[in-house]
């Protein structure tokens, strides 16, 4: 079983490798986004040493880290699932001897690892040449960040699956997928760290799973969290990983029995 899924990761990694040229433009696009936010936030700081516990340098690092992390956790599983439901190929997937959703998860993980190695790492290097950012040196912190980033990946893909399988009920959910993407970018703290929202909004955002995708991992590395602060963050992420299984399982069970293959 595990060998099969490991194989899925490997194959997806190799598939991505075959089209690696496509990713150079991706690095450029992410760098452009990092640049836009870097200048905006620099103007916002405008000489103020520290806002909401973030120094200007930490803010710049946060922007770079959170975008390059996005390259790792981002995937189009929601779209893939929705398309397969719409064109009916999902029916074939059901009779294959594996768990459809797990295959999607592992494929995306292969994709994520690919982008982490060939996109985020060189991208981060490029960005650190252009913008003044400060990354911690070699040490345990990177392992902590890796754990937190991995949990962020899991939560993101759970949300993607959740939105994707809604296509069983709402047959054309393209708009919903777009909206979800924008909401996740905003509420996960990618464009604005959660600590910068008004207090009431922070309460709401901290009760939602989105901050666990981007904000928490980025804060772990930018603020060099340790001890209870670190375990608190990872604990919240782990909690969401478990909690999100419930709606997915419920919808999935219901959906499989109401599957309508359109024009099969």
């Amino acid at each position, binding site marked *: 079983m595990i060998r099969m899924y490991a194989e899925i990761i490997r194959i997806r990694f190799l598939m991505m490798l075959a089209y690696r040229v496509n990713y150079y433009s991706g690095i450029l696009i992410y760098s452009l986004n990092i640049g836009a936010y870097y200048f905006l936030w620099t*103007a916002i700081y405008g000489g103020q040493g520290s806002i909401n516990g973030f120094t200007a340098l930490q803010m710049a690092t946060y922007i770079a880290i959170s975008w390059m992390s996005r390259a790792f956790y981002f995937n189009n599983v929601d779209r893939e699932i929705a398309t397969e439901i719409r064109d009916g190929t999902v029916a074939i997937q059901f009779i294959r001897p594996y768990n459809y959703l797990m295959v999607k998860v592992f494929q995306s993980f292969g994709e994520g690892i690919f982008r982490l190695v060939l996109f985020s790492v060189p991208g981060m290097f490029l960005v650190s040449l252009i913008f003044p950012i400060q990354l911690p040196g070699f040490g345990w912190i990177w392992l902590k960040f890796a754990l937190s980033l991995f949990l962020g990946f899991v939560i993101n893909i759970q949300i993607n699956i959740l939105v994707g399988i809604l296509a069983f009920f709402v047959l054309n959910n393209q708009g919903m997928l777009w909206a979800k993407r924008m909401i996740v970018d905003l509420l996960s703290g990618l464009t604005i760290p959660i600590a910068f929202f008004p207090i009431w909004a922070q309460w709401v955002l901290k009760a939602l799973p989105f901050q666990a995708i981007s904000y928490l991992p980025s804060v772990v590395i930018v603020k060099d969290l340790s001890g209870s602060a670190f375990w608190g963050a990872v604990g919240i992420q782990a909690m969401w990983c478990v909690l999100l299984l419930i709606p997915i399982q419920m919808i999935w069970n219901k959906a499989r029995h109401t599957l309508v293959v359109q024009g099969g």
Partner: protein
Amino acid sequence: MVQFQLLWEYFKQYMKARLEYRWDFISQFFTDLMSQAINLVFILVVFGHTQHLGGWSRYEVIFIYGYFLIPWAVFTSFFNLWGFNDKYIIRGELDRVLTRPVHSLVQVIMESMAPESLMGVLTGSIVMGWAVWHLPLDWAWYDPLLFIMFVLGGVAVYAGIYVALTSISLYSDSKSDIQPIVYNIGTYGRYPVNIYSKIIQFVLTWILPFAFVGFYPASYLLGNGDWKVYAMLTPVIGAVFFSLGLYSWNRGIENYKGAGS
């Protein structure tokens, strides 16, 4: 003019097709609205921490953003060329277009227009109106005329750049990622350009002049004289870039050989 009559016919056809899938139509509408709202939320949250962004107040920045939405909406309604490579080159639809007597670009534009994006003109106006309400603006009688000229200039800048980029497909049928790259540069134009470094300001002014779509004209309308010359240049830059786009399109059409399918 026969072109406008055609546009109207295409528009009617389009609406019929679109309203057949009403849910799509509505969800597209809400998605657009949401992306505009999210950008606005960003500005509002940011101004919770500072009084000025590069010397511009909260409502001035909101005004610039609201203004930007208007040319952007017109552009996305009529120059919806994102899928050009797939639809016209790879699937060979361009061959059909070329057998007809109307200019090929006009046909492509009419076939791929998305007039529902014009809603952005309304949202942009509302956002601008909201900002104006809080700003002590004093407009002369000719400013509304300039406003229209600025908007048209901005649309022409965007249209020229994207038509030029689209015509790359006429030379090579392989997909290029240059459009999303340029799109991301475009977002730089909706904030005050004086917050960027000198190189970026130069690029946004002369190379990919997106500053003429949002910031320069809006700064003039806000009564700031620093960029007045640039604001007045908007229609000129628009004309120049649109001509460049048109030129590269026409050259591309001459060069077009088909994808061989």
